[in-house]
C-alpha cells in the first residue's frame, strides 16, 4: 500500500531524527553508566559465576528527595561460621557515572553479614546488591529508587 507521506508521519520522522541528533551530542561525554555498563562492572567483580535472585536483603528508600545522600543497607541471613559465611556484598547502580558503589568484605568474624552506608544516586534507577558466599554461590537483590534531586552531575 503506497501513498504519499502524510504531514503527521513527516513530523514524526523529523522529530525522531532530531532526537537522535540530540542524543548523539549528549553521548559525546558519557555522563552515566547504562544497564550494560552495570552488567560489565558486575562481571568484572564476580567473573562468570551464575547469580541467583534471593537471600539478599537490600534496604533503600523507594522515594529519595536528595540523591546526594541516600541511606543504603544490605544484609544476608547467614550463620557466619568458618564453613558457611558471606565473603562479600557488592552494590552496583544502573545510571550513576560509574556503576560500582561499594564492596563490603566480611570474614567469619564479622558475626553478621550486613553493613550500611550512605550513597549518591544520579538518577531514578535500579540498585543491585550481589552477595558472594563461602560456598562459591552468588545471590542478588534489586531495588528501584525514584530520585527527585540528582547527585554528582551538577556544577559547583
Amino acid at each position, binding site marked *: 500500500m503506497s501513498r504519499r507521506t502524510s504531514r503527521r508521519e513527516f513530523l514524526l520522522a523529523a522529530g525522531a531524527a532530531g532526537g537522535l541528533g540530540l542524543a548523539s551530542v549528549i553521548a559525546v561525554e558519557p*555522563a552515566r553508566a547504562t544497564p550494560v555498563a552495570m552488567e560489565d562492572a558486575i562481571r568484572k567483580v564476580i567473573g562468570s559465576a551464575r547469580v541467583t535472585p534471593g537471600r539478599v536483603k537490600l534496604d533503600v528508600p523507594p522515594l529519595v528527595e536528595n540523591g*546526594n*545522600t*541516600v541511606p543504603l*543497607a544490605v544484609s544476608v541471613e547467614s550463620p557466619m561460621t568458618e564453613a558457611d559465611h558471606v565473603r562479600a556484598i557488592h552494590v552496583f*547502580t544502573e545510571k*550513576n*557515572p*560509574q556503576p*560500582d*558503589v*561499594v*564492596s*563490603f*568484605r*566480611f*570474614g567469619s*568474624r*564479622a*558475626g*553478621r553479614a*550486613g*553493613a*550500611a*552506608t*550512605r*550513597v*549518591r*544516586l544520579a538518577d531514578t534507577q535500579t540498585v543491585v546488591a550481589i552477595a558472594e558466599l563461602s560456598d562459591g554461590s552468588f545471590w542478588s537483590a534489586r531495588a528501584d529508587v525514584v530520585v527527585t534531586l540528582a*547527585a*554528582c*552531575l*551538577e*556544577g*559547583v
Partner: protein
Amino acid sequence: MASALINVPARARRGDVIEIKTLISHVMETGYRRSQLGARLPRDIITLFVCTYNGTEVFRAELHPAIAANPFIVFSTVATESGTLAFHWTGDNGFSVTESARITVE
C-alpha cells in the same frame, strides 16, 4: 584535617555481635563534577576502609565515588576478647587516617 567519629560499645559479653558505626569527614569529590569555569574537578575519595580487631582483619569496604560525602559505615563483629579495634581509611592524594577504640569483653 580529617576527623573521625567511632561508636563502639565500651563493654560486651563474649560471643556477642556488636555493631560499630564510623563516620569520617571527607569531601568524596567524585571526579565527574565541573567547576563554573568548566574545568573538571579531580577525583578525591576514600577508596578503602579496613577494621582490625587485635590485629586481625574483621571487615573491609572498598569505596567508589558513589559513596556520599563524609563516609558513614555501619558493620558488626563478634566480641571475642578485650583489646583494640583499629580503623584505617586510605584514599586519593595520600589520604590516610587511623583511629582506634578500646573494648572490654567479659
